[in-house]
């Protein structure tokens, strides 16, 4: 009896407290930071497949930066791309403890802008000596609502990596269509069971999207400012199905591949475990240093008809400065140093990614033939994910990967999985 009375007492007081109803706590809108000239600059950069070269280039920049600014230290934290959402959430919720500079993907610009935690860098870019050299189309991806939230650091374009030795041995030619790609992948896995035909993981959204786009579909459309999901359209369905079919026992067994992310898919290829993969320009050095050195080549990912190129995702990473940074000036200077011509070139040498400065890109494309497949892909036309805050949520809730995994593992049929995905997407678009 006593116990029951106690429970009643507790629930009544809880109800009363609720009725008193004060709202839950919120952060104060991001406080404006300061402009200290000394101290530790905290920087978040993305972890990559085989990070060492990137780390070396960044270390060099840090050394140079520290030499130019006495009393300044730079602390770099490597953030895994897939775990970025909770990490950045923390930083947005507590601006006082956020880093000063952070690398982030252009797909997140709209949603990060919405939190008001990032500085508008429009003024800084116009007064930056190298700012005019930025490719306008790339700079556009850093904008949301007329403000610029990051310095474009590099452009990420993905293409098809394949094993030249395996293709020669099996008498295969680089695939001319996506259907051929599937056939080739199947042949590779049949002939060499230790190799995945193509390593494209279930959590690799940016490998999935070209399949959707090549089939003439898209993930969402915009009507009068409102986005709605279109993954159930016949074209999108065809693309997603084609992609999910790669995650089958005869190509890339789902037990191993269904949970792979983009980074892991590329790592598997670099480690000599796959016949093909879809990888970015920024992965090239990692592959070059892997077990497949000298045994691979890159071509644009084919479309559905011979000679066509599947539209690639116009990815790119930016360097943003947090508004609450106590060292705003230093933060901007460090971002400008990393994004400047000198370190763009060094980053290119370290990782092979496409620079965002026009002069650097032209110079490198002319001198380095390995860039050709990526530049060709770029020239064939790229596409972008819906630029709305809702997309970041769809992305971090793994909506599309879940659908692909369900289809690949037979957990749900195509229609069921895509119906769920549509519902989840439309909910997030609001």
């Amino acid at each position, binding site marked *: 009896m006593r*116990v029951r009375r106690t429970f009643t*007492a507790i629930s009544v007081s809880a109800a009363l407290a609720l009725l008193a109803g004060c709202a*839950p706590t919120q952060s104060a809108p991001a406080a404006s930071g300061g402009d200290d000239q000394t101290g530790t600059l905290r920087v978040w950069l993305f972890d990559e497949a085989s990070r060492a070269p990137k780390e070396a280039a960044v270390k060099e920049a840090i050394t140079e930066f520290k030499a130019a600014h006495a009393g300044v230290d730079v*602390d770099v934290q490597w953030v895994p791309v897939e775990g970025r959402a909770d*990490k950045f959430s923390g*930083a947005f919720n*507590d601006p006082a*403890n956020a*880093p000063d500079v952070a690398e982030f993907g252009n797909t997140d610009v709209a949603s990060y802008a919405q939190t008001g935690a990032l500085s508008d860098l429009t003024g800084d870019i116009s007064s930056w000596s190298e700012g005019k050299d930025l490719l306008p189309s790339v700079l556009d991806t850093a904008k949301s609502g007329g403000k610029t939230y990051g310095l474009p650091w590099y452009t990420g374009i993905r293409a098809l990596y394949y094993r030249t030795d395996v293709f020669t041995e099996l008498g295969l030619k680089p695939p001319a269509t996506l259907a051929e790609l599937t056939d080739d992948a199947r042949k590779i896995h049949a002939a060499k069971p230790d190799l995945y035909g193509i390593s494209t993981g279930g959590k690799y959204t940016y490998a999935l999207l070209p399949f959707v786009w090549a089939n003439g579909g898209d993930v969402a459309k915009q009507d009068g400012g409102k986005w709605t999901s279109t993954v159930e359209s016949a074209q999108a369905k065809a693309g997603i199905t084609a992609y999910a079919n790669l995650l089958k026992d005869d190509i890339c067994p789902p037990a191993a591949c269904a949970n792979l992310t983009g980074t*892991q898919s590329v790592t598997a290829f670099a480690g000599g475990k796959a016949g093909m993969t879809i990888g970015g320009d920024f992965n090239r050095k990692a592959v070059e240093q892997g077990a497949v050195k000298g045994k691979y080549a890159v071509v644009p990912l084919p479309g559905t008809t011979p000679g066509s190129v599947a539209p690639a995702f116009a990815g790119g990473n930016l360097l943003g400065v947090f508004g609450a940074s106590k060292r705003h000036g230093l933060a901007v200077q460090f971002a400008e140093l990393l994004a400047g011509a000198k370190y763009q070139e060094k980053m290119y040498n370290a990782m092979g990614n496409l620079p965002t400065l026009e002069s650097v890109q032209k110079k490198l494309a002319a001198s380095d033939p390995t860039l050709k497949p990526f530049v060709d892909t770029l020239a064939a036309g790229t596409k972008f994910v819906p630029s709305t805050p809702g997309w970041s949520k769809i992305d971090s809730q793994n909506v599309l990967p879940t659908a692909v995994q369900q289809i690949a593992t037979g957990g749900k049929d195509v229609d069921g999985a895509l119906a769920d995905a549509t519902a989840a997407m439309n909910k997030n678009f609001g």
Partner: protein
Amino acid sequence: MAVISARSTAKSTGRRRVRRPGRLVAEIITVVVAGIVAFPLYWMVLSAFKPAGEIQTANPKPWTLAPSLDSFQRVLTVSGFGRFFVNSLVVALAVVVLSLLLSFLSAVALTRFRFRGRTVLLVMILVAQMVPVEALTIPLFFLMRQIGAVAPAFGLNELGSLVLVHLAFSLPFAIWMLRGFVAAVPVELEEAAKLDGASRMRFTWQILFPLVAPGLVAVSVLAFIHAWNDFLFAKTFIISKTENQTLPQAILVFFKPEETDWGAVMASSTLMTIPVLVFFVLVQRRLVSGMSGAVKG
């Protein structure tokens, strides 16, 4: 362990059942089970000492002829591993000491004193143990931010915030456990102390506290493990100050699907397990009696 066993042999099982034929079978089963239970630990330590070629192999062997410290070397050269280790230790020890003091006081109040609302408090303490603390990450995050504005050492990004949350989460169980133990100390003892002129405060600290030592041991073990194990709060609260991270993050560095450095993961796991094991061994003689004390209430 030796103490427990020696004492209990003398006390009960004794010579009485020496001739039982079933006992040998039971003992064989016991030893086999002990082997199975210990095996994952053996495998962890073994893999930590294996040279690189013997770890990532399709034919793992349950021994190694060429033990090597390479994996430990890789772990220890990761920037900050020692620092992370010290951080974890500081947090765990602070939680242990504080939770002992606070839970002891509360347990005394809840068992030795009669006052209104005692039952309510007890039920609340039981309820508190059921709250999924992971769900509280959200409000706690904001609370720590507010606390940080007043007392920076306990704000986000600082070890103090971790001490506070783990203290709060260890307390309900600690109080719950100590309560039974305090209750087991005869009331007559208190009366006698009172007659001798000891104040209540003095009785509590000088007589009661040492008497419930086994209970305190059990509580400290659980509080230590709780704080030491934490993965989620360290991950959420320590936002950008790398130097304030704790051990689990150090292990995560080596664990990446498709390119996991298993040798390093096992070596860092071994290093992470050692302090808890040491702590256990230090307090083990009191542990069993501590557990039984918890029930006598």
